[in-house]
């Protein structure tokens, strides 16, 4: 059964047909978990964007007499090992972690989806080549790939994003390919071809819009994984460089002070947890909302 494309929303029969986007949104609203996730993500994004105005202190200003102080009225989250305010660092850290998630998934999408379409639609030896390489990348331990890439590119947040993006690409290739292969035998594709549309037009305007829903779901879930991957790389010293904050590098510094100053580890960990959980809830909700079998 073909999914209606956005262009069909203007029903020429005069019936008021709900566009798929609206339907999805309505169904998403019903899932409380997804709404909660969306709310938390929005808060994080707001904090990240408005960080300079919201944060109480300069996140890299050191204060050697206030080293590792417990949470207090002056410093709600306490201070870190060189006396910086933890609340400010968590807020500014949201910038690094969220942008890392968004950019790496962006890279994975912009490389993976086209490759998946090519593999799925063209088939033949091109498909075999792409599929085997994808399988090979999926068989290699993800963190090793990421570490090696990040070490090769040089330690920085930007390079960590590239490394994570590259390691996330195979999943999108495989997903896209599978979706394309399922969709390309549909009638409307057959129709478009018989009219004389060149392959690239079919791919861009007929196939792509119809495979977006599962891609969207996967992208949301991949965002969650990317944030944790950034934390892992920064934890290993391969991501955000000091003194700029990121939740992962904050955990790296906090490791030594678990007994003396546990608050240093708790707040960035909680932030990661909330952000990742929210993306997961949203992704699951999206999957349900976009499921064509649901009413």
């Amino acid at each position: 059964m073909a999914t209606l494309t956005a262009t069909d929303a203007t029903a020429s029969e005069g019936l008021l047909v709900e566009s798929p986007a609206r339907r999805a949104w309505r169904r998403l609203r019903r899932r409380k978990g997804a709404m909660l996730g969306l709310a938390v993500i929005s808060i994080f994004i707001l904090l990240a964007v408005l960080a300079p105005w919201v944060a109480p202190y300069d996140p890299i200003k050191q204060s050697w007499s206030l080293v590792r102080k417990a949470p207090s009225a002056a410093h709600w989250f306490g201070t870190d090992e060189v006396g910086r305010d933890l609340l400010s660092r968590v807020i500014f850290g949201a910038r690094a972690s969220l942008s890392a998630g968004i950019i790496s998934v962006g890279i994975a999408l912009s490389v993976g989806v086209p490759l998946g379409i090519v593999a799925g639609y063209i088939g033949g030896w091109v498909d075999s080549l792409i599929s085997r390489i994808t399988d090979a990348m999926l068989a290699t331990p993800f963190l090793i790939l990421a570490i090696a890439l990040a070490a090769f590119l040089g330690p920085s947040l930007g390079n960590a994003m590239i490394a994570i993006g590259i390691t996330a690409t195979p999943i999108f290739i495989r997903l896209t390919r599978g979706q394309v292969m399922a969709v390309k035998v549909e009638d409307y594709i057959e129709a478009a071809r018989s009219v004389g549309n060149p392959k690239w037009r079919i791919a861009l305007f007929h196939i792509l819009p119809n495979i977006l829903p599962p891609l969207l779901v996967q992208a949301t879930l991949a965002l969650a994984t990317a944030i944790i991957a950034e934390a892992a790389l920064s934890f290993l010293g391969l991501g955000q460089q000091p003194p700029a904050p990121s939740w992962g590098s904050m955990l790296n510094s906090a490791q030594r002070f678990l007994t003396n100053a546990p608050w240093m580890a708790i707040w960035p960990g909680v932030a990661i947890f909330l952000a990742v959980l929210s993306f997961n809830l949203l992704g699951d909700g999206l999957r349900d909302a976009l499921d064509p079998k649901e009413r």
Partner: protein
Amino acid sequence: MLPFLGRRLLQLIPTLFFVSVIIFGLQQLLPGDPALIMAGEERDPDVIAQIREQYRLDQPIPVQYVYWMKGVLSGDLGESMRIKKPVLDLVLEKLPVTAQLAGMAILIALVIGVGAGIVSAVYKDTWLDYGANIFALWGISTPNFWLGILLIFLFSVQLGWLPASGYVRPGEDLQASLASTIMPAFVLGNAIAAILMRHTRGAMLQVLSSDYVRTARAKGLLERSVVLKHAMRNAMTPVITLGALELGTLLSGAVLTEQIFTIPGFGKLIVDAVFNRDYAVVQGVVLVTATAYIVLNLLADIAYVLANPRLRS
């Protein structure tokens, strides 16, 4: 069935070839000179030159690759530069450790994930659904290195119930072995639980709304027996195949978790080898784990196709 199997087996070869190229290439990309790292603080140019010659580090890259592959195809995975032990020995040493950890993690994941998935599907859209959801998602939402450190702090330092790190073989002392692996297995299993939960829930929902379940309900069978007998049996297939896949991922070694808990498995071996530029170890171990992963994938696919005769055509 047979042509399917044959085709998949044939695909194994190019895939493994690409794995070897990827991992070999990555090692070469890594900045840093292994000879220098071997030398560490002692920096005599003659000694360094000798090391380079001994391990063929001064040869062109394609030549090094060929030497390595020749060895691999004849069963010799090379030797660790750092400790002068054959890679194959190291692999055989670590395999039982990682296998034990992986096995326990999958068990924990099955219990948590499948349980939560069933609850979530049966009580869909209620608070139990969301609760089970969050409970299972908790696993992939928490960075495992953070969770690991917190668990050690709680259970080893504060409560003293479990050892903070280290590994005891089951052969030596079964109870101590379980005590030393339960925390890392839990950290690992947690993450997989979420994925299993999702699929259990999806599969259960599909089955629960299907015709024959509706028929069973219409016949008046007890809800519980409907759920347990019919729904679960059919929902298990994708879950089991997924479990096999995740097992493959686990076998690659949970890198950070092993580091924190000091479990001498594959993960720790690989990551240390990367940082020490011990090429042979990284290449050899990744090749082994990738092979295992691909084979498990294949077995999972076969099982899936066998269980669903409709897919065979």
